[in-house]
């Protein structure tokens, strides 16, 4: 059943709507919310939602509980190929838990949190951005790691990153929900503005695995092919560009790199010169790599888990 959570008028004859699909099973059971499209430039979640809604709707007899799918938290952002909320230039994932008395964006954030609160599990799907390519991974704040890592393992992603608590992340959807005792897992994968079908299928399968674990799916599910690398309290090396220029690489993320290994080079197309070589300072698992080639000093080039 399609439900509208937010509906407000835009200036010229248009309704701004945020909708969800609520699919109830034949038996009572847990409530799982799948959320995506907070960042308008991240699209993998669209295929995941499509596959999930289609499969569950066609196999309702296996569902015990409720699946709620929110494909577009930021519909105007998706429509205008903008990461943030158009007209406000705001990152929607920095305004949670919102404010019923605040701006339209803050009111929207508030309404969404209130709608989701109380779910037994929430999966917030992101796909990096234009700049970085990410290995399929789950991100968990260290403060909620003990509770959430066991759930995250069922999603069949390559990597689980337990990161430390930064204050700026306190305004994210995941943080706000976890503070409200509604468990939320953040999935990151791929790169902005594109859909990688096989990654999406893996996540869909992972979500069915998690649903099975939660006791809300009785259908057949293939076991995940991979055991995730778990980075818990381990150190992650951030590799930043030493020079501004054009980044060229042959590598992909999700690979092991060794100390001093060349990841790529930053070049100057005008002079035909290499400006700097990007080398790994450590041996480990490279789960993020730069996707957008134009870089400035400081641009993030890679993240490596020194396992």
């Amino acid at each position, binding site marked *: 059943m399609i439900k509208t959570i937010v509906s*407000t008028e835009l200036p010229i004859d248009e309704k701004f709507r945020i909708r969800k699909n609520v699919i109830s099973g034949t038996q009572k059971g847990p409530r799982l919310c799948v959320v995506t499209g907070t960042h308008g430039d991240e699209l993998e979640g669209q295929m995941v939602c499509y596959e999930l809604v289609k499969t569950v709707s066609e196999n309702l007899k296996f569902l015990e509980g409720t699946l709620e799918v929110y494909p577009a938290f930021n519909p105007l952002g998706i429509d205008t190929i903008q990461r943030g909320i158009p007209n406000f*230039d705001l990152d929607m994932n920095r305004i949670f838990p919102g404010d019923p008395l605040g701006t339209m964006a803050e009111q929207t954030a508030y309404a969404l949190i209130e709608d989701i609160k109380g779910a037994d599990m929430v999966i917030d799907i992101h796909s990096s951005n234009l700049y970085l390519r990410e290995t399929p991974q789950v991100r968990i704040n260290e403060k909620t790691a003990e509770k959430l890592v066991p759930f995250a393992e069922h999603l069949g992603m390559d990597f689980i990153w337990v990161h430390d608590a930064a204050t*700026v992340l306190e305004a994210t959807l995941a943080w706000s929900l976890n503070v409200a005792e509604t468990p939320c897992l953040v999935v990151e994968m791929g790169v902005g503005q594109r859909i990688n079908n096989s990654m999406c299928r893996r996540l869909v399968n992972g979500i069915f695995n998690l649903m099975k674990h939660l006791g809300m799916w009785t259908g057949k599910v293939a076991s995940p092919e991979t055991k995730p690398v778990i980075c818990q309290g381990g150190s992650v090396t951030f590799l930043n560009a030493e020079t501004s220029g054009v980044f060229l690489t042959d590598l992909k993320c999700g690979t092991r790199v060794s100390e001093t290994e060349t990841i790529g080079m930053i070049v100057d197309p005008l002079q035909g010169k290499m400006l700097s070589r990007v080398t790994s300072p450590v041996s480990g698992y490279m789960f993020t790599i730069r996707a957008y080639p134009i870089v400035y000093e400081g641009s993030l080039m890679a993240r490596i888990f020194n396992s």
Partner: protein
Amino acid sequence: MRVETIFEMTSPYRDSFRIKGFRFGNGEKTLAIAGPMRGDEIQQQYICSQIVRRLTMAEQHGRISEGKSILVIPSCNPFSMNVSRRFWAMDNTDINRMFPGYSQGETTQRIAAAIFSALEGFEYGIQLASYYVPGDFVPHVRMITTGYETLDTAKLFGMKFVSLCKPRPFDTALLNYNWQIWNTKAFSVYAGCTSRIDSTAASETVDAIMRMMQAAKILTKTVTLSPAYEPAVVDESELLHVKASHAGIFYRLKSPGSSIESGDVLAQIIDPYNGQCLSEVKSPADGIVFFAHNQPLVFENGLIFMIRGM
């Protein structure tokens, strides 16, 4: 006056990104003024240029106090302004959400780190700032309440209002918050508007900053400035928020600074198809318009006015 380059970074396709500092006087780090960090802060850019001009004259006339030095950074982000983008164009990040910065981090973290290392250690700090919601303010001095804020100094500006706001989680990355934590008496000055020059509000703001310098004895020998106000202190959480009951064309009737009575019509919202008035926006109380939406269109439930009740 001495001009120096505080930070320089090469760009793949453009001239180098440079942040320049203008130093006046000699001795203790007394006052630092930070200009625009966002590319649409044109009013703030103009005000900085006027302050540099006034300080240059003050220095020529020997009016800068012995043993005190002033640093003005007229732009923290010329690159964004030159291409009409609000944030850092390559990744849309906001330099004013990156403090205290990190010199080994991402580009805007590095820029913030360089700015912060130039700005820290001053006794007083002033940032020419803009609000995250588009609109016009009555010119005022704003302070984040961290426990380190200094209301008495804020009153030295002699602006009509001093506002106090509680920090939200993401405010901990603002320049002003970090300045205060590192023991600078920090103020944000809101000069009315942002993306255009309002010369009345600009000269009021320039005078207020010069007045503060005189009152804090950073400048000697007072010169005549526009008259000072006895500032009213505003707790931002007590401002009355007026929302749009309809979306449509926004026709504003009252501007920031207007005195209003309960029931006064502040704006009309017009149907964009048939020209009918969809809503007369009325004031909920007697008071003063503190903030007003400044776009020609409005969304349903959009925040259009903030009123300081009497």
